[in-house]
């Protein structure tokens, strides 16, 4: 099954890519967008059909390698149709 991971910079960390993109959007007239944060999307193919097992594995992968928890948050999503 597939597991999706979204990694974002923690709130306290400056996100220069998000900030620059936000400025560009403002210049383009997107007045109602009040903030932009840019992160990473990671898709894992996991050899199991048990969502809980897949989630645990993804969590381990995040803690060990995929996220730097000093400055990043991660969110694990298991698609509904799984």
């Amino acid at each position, binding site marked *: 099954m597939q597991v999706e991971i979204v990694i974002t910079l923690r709130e*306290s*960390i*400056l996100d*220069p*890519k998000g900030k*620059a993109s936000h400025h560009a959007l403002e210049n383009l007239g997107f007045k109602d967008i009040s903030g932009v944060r840019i992160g990473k999307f990671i898709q894992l193919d996991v050899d199991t059909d048990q969502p809980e097992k897949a989630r645990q594995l993804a969590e381990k992968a995040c803690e060990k*390698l*995929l996220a*730097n928890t*000093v*400055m990043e948050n991660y969110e694990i999503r298991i698609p509904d149709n799984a």
Partner: protein
Amino acid sequence: MKFGVLVFPGSNCDHDAYHALKHIHGTETRFIWHKESSLGDVDAVIVPGGFSYGDYLRSGAIARFSPVMNAVADFAAKGGPVLGICNGFQILLEARLLPGTMMANEHLRFTCKQVLLKTESHQTPFTSKVPENTLLEIPVAHGEGNYYAEKELLKELEDQDQIIFRYVNAQGDTVPEANPNGSVSNIAGICNKARNVVGMMPHPERAVEKSLGSEDGRYLFESVINHITYSL
């Protein structure tokens, strides 16, 4: 006396470090491929700059799991001198051999220029021979050199004298204009608690000959050579 220079796929300052140690300082130096599980009988290790593993995921994130990094951790735990330069600094941070983390430069640009450094502590194997009251002119070349430490860690680094280099102006003042990347507290280099592992964003190996514009990087290599001489 033997130096080891690590080589990862994507390292590009490994030959500069080798040149500085072997040809400028005349020390026996060898490359150590990242797949090796032993460092052999080296007396000091340089983790060089570059773009290990293409900086995929995060700078240094994948390199830290290379087999050779276990050997570096063991070597460091025994007190062996380790210097991480630029991407090497990032790798040491990811490997948790040094505290804190590295973010993209505040202004988002890759910055390559000469900077001035103030040596905040001479109590490391790599700074013991840096002359007092002398600013070092050494180049930086990086896109992710914005060192970050949470408040508590920053206080700890200051209290334990673990901040080794700061970006300063020609008067030696720690001012925002002298900061090339937005690093907290103008930090350019730090060491671990045991003081034998040092990480820095500027490239001392690129400042070892007059023709390179500065020879100030030599002080760091002279320091560690002196350190090894007296510990052998």
